């Protein structure tokens, strides 16, 4: 970008996240309300790095019981067996069922862990004031934002399997204690993504450009 590239914050302006209107806060105030939609405006989401870290760490903590504790318990005449998420993936794996097994593997194991790692990377990059590969980082953020909801798949699989398979004494499926931790991971990572402010990715580069302009 040329020397003319400037951000709204450098000009003392605030773009509304909700309605897009650009406005200037009252002199002497750091924040105000959007005159069009009434949203509270700040230059950057307040304490967003700390909040995102808090949600992310909470998600990482829940990630352990989510994968170690069983999410489904199947009771048949022969006895009871409990499956964790990974065991569920293995159970689904068969010559005909492997695509579904792959869906659950991607949605329940790869997406949540990739999301935690990606957000952690973005937060560290922002805190270190990195100025390089910002476009890729923004793309990573958008991908994490877009893909996050799909990890809810396993919650729905277990919910409806348990709701349907109620054929006592023949066979009954019940949700296990891991399910609530897994759901928590999904919700907490979504909240972490929402509390992160992608404009921070560019701030260091913007400041540098302004100095050289």
């Amino acid at each position: 970008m040329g020397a003319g590239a400037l951000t709204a914050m450098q000009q003392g302006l605030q773009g509304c996240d909700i309605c897009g209107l650009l406005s200037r806060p009252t002199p002497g105030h750091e924040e105000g309300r959007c005159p069009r939609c009434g949203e509270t405006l700040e230059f950057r989401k307040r304490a967003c790095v700390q909040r995102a870290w808090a949600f992310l760490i909470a998600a990482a903590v829940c990630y352990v019981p989510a994968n170690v504790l069983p999410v489904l318990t199947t009771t048949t005449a022969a006895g009871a067996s409990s499956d964790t998420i990974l065991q569920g993936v293995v159970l689904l794996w068969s010559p005909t069922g492997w695509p579904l097994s792959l869906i659950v593997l991607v949605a329940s194991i790869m997406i949540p862990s990739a999301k935690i790692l990606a957000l952690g990377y973005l937060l560290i990059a922002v805190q270190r004031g990195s100025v390089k590969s910002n476009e890729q980082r923004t793309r990573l953020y958008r991908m994490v934002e877009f893909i996050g909801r799909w990890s809810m798949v396993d919650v729905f699989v277990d919910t409806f399997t348990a709701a349907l398979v109620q054929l006592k004494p023949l066979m009954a499926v019940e949700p296990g204690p891991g399910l609530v931790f897994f759901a928590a991971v999904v919700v907490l990572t979504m909240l972490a993504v929402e509390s992160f402010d992608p404009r921070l990715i560019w701030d260091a580069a913007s400041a540098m450009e302004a100095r050289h302009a």
Partner: protein
Amino acid sequence: MPDEHYNQPVADRSLIACPHCDLLQHLPNLASAASARCPRCNEELWRRREDSLNRTLALAVTAALLYLVANAVPMLGLTVVGREAATTVIGGAEHLWQVGQVAVAILVLFTAIVAPALQIVLMLAIVLGTRRQPAPRWAGTLLRHHGTTQTWSMIEVMMLGVLVALVKIADYATVIPGTALFVLGALIVVLAAMQASFEPREVWEKIQWAEAGTRDRALDARS
């Protein structure tokens, strides 16, 4: 009493800041169906849609009808050695609640039932309200919260989950896909079309400003 300091809007209305990288730029005038992207971070800033309000209204009405049907009829059933069982969308959440998984039950209820309903109802209210001139402020208030309902409305994710569950159960029982399953499939398509045809910029341009409200109230208090 909330903070009543309103910002001063910039005079040049085509000047905007990119929501993803905060770069100041002028939004060009767009031809129909064209879109503008941020030169720095490639975020889509605006896509011009033709006849947005009417199309969104039609799709929102369709979505509302499909939603009602999808939640009224069974979604999945199974038979095994002469025994039958069936469940609806809400039945899934209800069962979780009964076995003590209250938190997960609330999450399923919210993402599969409450958020989609709000997404449709708010959209209906917004496009109907915006037909008035000037559009009432409550339409703006609803639009402010519409993004949240969209984030948490997960019908398409639920659909994938149900399909996986269906195949899983098919190993040891005969599954009967219910009417709701097909209606949900249609609802996913209609909801996506509804979001795609909606142009929030058009609504914001017609809406009565929040700042005008405080001015009115101040005048009322004086008189």
